[in-house]
């Protein structure tokens, strides 16, 4: 059971609803409290299982057709709606004794208003659908990468090729990836290459390199650019930038047909420095 004092934080942290300060405070507590760490992991697993499995029901093709037909009918009906007989302006004035400028408002609505409302709805829904789909893809892709980073750190064998030598790590990927990349020299820097491993994202092979700075680990994912890849989804929504995701610092960029995403719990300046070294190494 988690500590009573932290229960509220535990849930808000799992739901990504903490302020950055509260998240940092809770993460510090997690490092010292195995009970809360296990609880956080359990909640995260429950959440992930729900996200993965609860999309259970799909509308049948028949139902989709019926709905599309119904909505078309609704729009058509909206177009025809002004068929009701309206009193003339003279009749209204005569009946109400009001001047022309104060006619009852329903008769002031132009006949094309329902059509305009229909078009506005279609545009709004299309825009919402586009934004939402893109946002979802980004969230899923980012969650997958963060999970891979965390799983790597928790693993007894975090990398497949263990070496601090870039001339050992890079050739290990030869024949395993349909692309190649350059790695920076780490001597005389605060960073240490731990190794690398082959990972798959959306069924495509990618490289995961693990570096250490101080007591923190940094994962670097390198993949070929592809419209369907997780990297492309992440980059397409937010562009090349540095930001925080669930307390992790995330840096990403594109270069020469490759996408790079870095994830770490260290501060953003450490991540950005390594990113700059990788960018420099990639330049001819």
């Amino acid at each position, binding site marked *: *059971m988690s500590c009573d004092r932290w*229960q*509220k934080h535990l*849930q*808000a942290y799992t*739901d990504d*609803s903490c302020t950055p300060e509260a998240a940092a405070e809770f993460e510090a507590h997690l490092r010292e409290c195995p009970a809360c760490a*296990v*609880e956080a*992991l*359990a*909640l995260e*697993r*429950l*959440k992930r*299982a*729900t*996200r993965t*499995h*609860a*999309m*259970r*029901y*799909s*509308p049948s093709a028949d*139902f*989709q057709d*019926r*709905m*599309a037909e*119904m*909505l078309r009918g*609704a729009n058509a009906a909206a177009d025809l709606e002004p068929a009701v007989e309206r009193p003339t302006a003279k009749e209204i004035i005569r009946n109400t004794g009001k001047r022309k400028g104060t006619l009852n408002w329903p008769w002031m609505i132009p006949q094309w208003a329902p059509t305009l*409302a229909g078009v506005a*709805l279609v545009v*709004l*829904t*299309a825009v*919402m*659908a586009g934004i*939402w789909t893109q946002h*979802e893809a980004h*969230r899923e892709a980012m969650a997958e990468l963060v999970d891979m980073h965390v799983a790597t750190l928790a693993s007894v064998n975090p990398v497949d090729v263990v070496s601090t030598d870039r001339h050992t790590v890079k050739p290990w990927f030869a024949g395993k990836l349909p692309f190649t990349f350059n790695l920076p020299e780490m001597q005389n820097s605060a960073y240490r290459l731990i190794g690398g491993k082959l990972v798959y994202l959306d069924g495509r092979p990618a490289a995961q390199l693990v570096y250490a700075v101080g007591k923190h680990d940094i994962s670097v994912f390198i993949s070929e650019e592809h419209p369907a890849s997780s990297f492309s989804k992440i980059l397409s929504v937010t562009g090349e930038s540095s930001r925080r995701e669930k307390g992790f610092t995330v840096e990403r960029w594109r270069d020469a047909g490759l996408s790079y995403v870095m994830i770490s719990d260290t501060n953003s300046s450490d991540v950005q420095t390594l990113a700059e070294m990788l960018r420099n190494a990639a330049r001819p």
Partner: protein
Amino acid sequence: MPLFARLFNFACWLTQDRGEAEELVQDTFMKALKGFRSFEQGTNFRAWIYRILRNTFLTTRAGLKVYDSLDEDGAYEPESTQTPELLLLARSSRETLHLALEQLPAKFREVILLCDLEEMSYQEIAETLAIPTGTVMSRLWRARRAMRGLLKDMGHGGAA
């Protein structure tokens, strides 16, 4: 049709019946079309349409029945667990999760689905369910405890 497939999935979880879910989604879209003028720009479209769906369900006999079965003070309080369900979840099948969700009271099921599947913020859930944010958090906490209790029972009882 934005959110169509997700609304249908949510409707199925609420009604537990595909036919009723289809009617519910159909009514929801019709009401959304008619009430589009009441949608204020700048407010949350997703919370708005989910609220329509849920309110529509609440007016059905099935909806009234399932929502009346649980009061906020908590007649339903399954055993709080530590983490034995962790192992179950680690190798969990889709069916295990479905069974647990089906057995949850509707109020718990919907708040878990809105938070974990639809990934709504507490504020969005509060708008959808028309309850305060604090109630969202406490209901979510109880819902997850209940869910974990069910998963634990399944692990011990072999329901998975």
